[in-house]
């Protein structure tokens, strides 16, 4: 590299400061619809979060707010460590995660084939769309009493509520993914001699896969929302139970510690699935 710049002595001294100048110029990060390096994006994200935490900590220490209602981040962190040691916080988090994954897998395993069929065969779509649309708009909390009547207060109620919240959303998203597969792909497969089953398996499913994985990631997030509702209503374990118990004794730091754990699990899961998406669909 140095050889090249030295063979052009006239431009080299000028171009060097010019190349570094945009990086130092603070206005360049404000370029309208501009781009930012990945490193800069992570740096800014971490910086903002840390800054917010520091302000929060300061506000709590100075005494601007009643710490019974808004404990400082350091207090929340120390109660979280205490909860890990004395209240089996990690086990509770593990149970919650397990519930989410069981219910979510169940919903996905049912929603994917049904959604695909709805878009592949108009008759299936016509038959199911009204029912699914109706149930989709029912808020899950409204169905809590009914699910307790049906399933009692055991594990099955929680799984049922989670399934309820995700299955009906997911099935329509899957149907949409399949509908968006360009018709050209289907026709290419047919003119290459593929039958319907082969076309579905080798072409249509492959074509919809990136969208499908994205939608699974998004619905998994919703699943967590319903988990807390389910665990607050009827549970003796899980993060929702921990939060609700702490609330009863006005232990705000523990409530917030529980909330933070959910946030962290969500963030990690989401980033993990995004990474998988990037790896699996390099061709995009």
């Amino acid at each position: 590299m140095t050889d090249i710049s030295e063979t052009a002595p006239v431009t080299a001294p000028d171009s060097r400061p010019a190349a570094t100048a945009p990086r130092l110029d603070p206005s360049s990060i404000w370029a309208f619809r501009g781009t930012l390096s990945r490193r800069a994006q992570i740096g800014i994200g971490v910086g903002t979060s840390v800054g917010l935490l520091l302000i929060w900590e300061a506000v709590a220490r100075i005494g601007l707010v009643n710490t019974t209602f808004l404990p400082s981040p350091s207090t929340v962190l120390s109660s979280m460590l205490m909860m890990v040691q004395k209240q089996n916080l990690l086990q509770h988090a593990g149970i919650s995660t397990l519930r989410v994954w069981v219910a979510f897998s169940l919903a996905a395993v049912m929603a994917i084939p049904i959604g695909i069929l709805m878009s592949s065969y108009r008759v299936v779509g016509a038959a199911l769309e009204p029912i699914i649309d109706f149930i989709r708009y029912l808020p899950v909390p409204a169905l809590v009493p009914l699910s307790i009547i049906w399933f009692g207060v055991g594990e099955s109620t929680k799984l049922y509520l989670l399934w309820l919240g995700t299955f009906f959303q997911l099935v329509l998203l899957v149907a949409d993914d399949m509908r968006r597969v360009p018709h050209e792909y289907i026709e290419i497969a047919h003119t290459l001699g593929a039958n319907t089953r082969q076309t579905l398996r080798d072409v249509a499913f492959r074509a919809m896969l990136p969208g499908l994985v994205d939608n699974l990631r998004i619905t998994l997030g919703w699943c967590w929302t319903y988990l807390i509702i389910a665990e607050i209503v009827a549970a003796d374990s899980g993060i929702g139970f921990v939060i609700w118990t702490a609330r009863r004794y006005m232990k705000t730091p523990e409530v917030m510690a529980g909330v933070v754990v959910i946030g962290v699990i969500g963030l990690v899961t989401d980033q993990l699935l995004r990474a998988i998406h990037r790896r699996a669909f390099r061709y995009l």
Partner: protein
Amino acid sequence: MIEPYLAFHGVTKRFGDLDVVAQPFSITVERNEFVVFLGPSGCGKTTLMRMIGGLETPSSGAICLEGLPVGGPDHRRGMVFQSYSSFPWLTVAENVLFGMRYRKDLTEQQKLARRDNYLELVGLYEFSDAYPNKVSGGMRQRVAIARTLAAGSDVMLMDEPFGALDAQRRERLQVELRAIQRRDAKTIVFVTHDVEEAVFLADRVIVFSKRPARVMADIDITDRLGAERPLELRDSPEFFQLRNGVLRLLREAAGDEE
């Protein structure tokens, strides 16, 4: 009497109450002939071509290949579309190989040999491992052509395959396609609304009116320009004259619009 290779026998098509082809359409296409369907956008020429592929069925009449009515789609009648012509999740080589995926009569080895042969033919061998989004639009169309050839199509159906390419790429691909057709001896039915493209590529141009499609002219190009089509042909007065003649016809075909 010798059976024509590919024949439309009084074909009409209606979609609901929309007449796409009202006047019965009858033509015959010889083996290894390059026929271009030329007409205004939306005139029904694409529908007629899709019927050869078995992607549409005639409302009346029949289409016969070697004397037998065509049924549903199969690998003998391959299709090259303008967009979404190759699968983005497969590499260039995998796309070409996919063309033979459902052929039971070829061994794995034969398939690989054919794949390499056709990649070579369309000049994509060195891009074998690239994904379609990493190559140009022109290369993506070559992938589709190679896939169709590898599949063993006797009739290649092309729906404005170069419509989305810039002028230089389009010209180059036209020259190559014509050369491939001459070398590989393929029957091609090619749909376009570009007059120059039609005249440059075709042995025979069928000019359609606006919808409902009706044949305005059936012009033998090879008779006037010969079978070889080097790029320089585009600059010759014969080509220019023929192009203008066809253009005039097409203007009439488009009728009193605008």
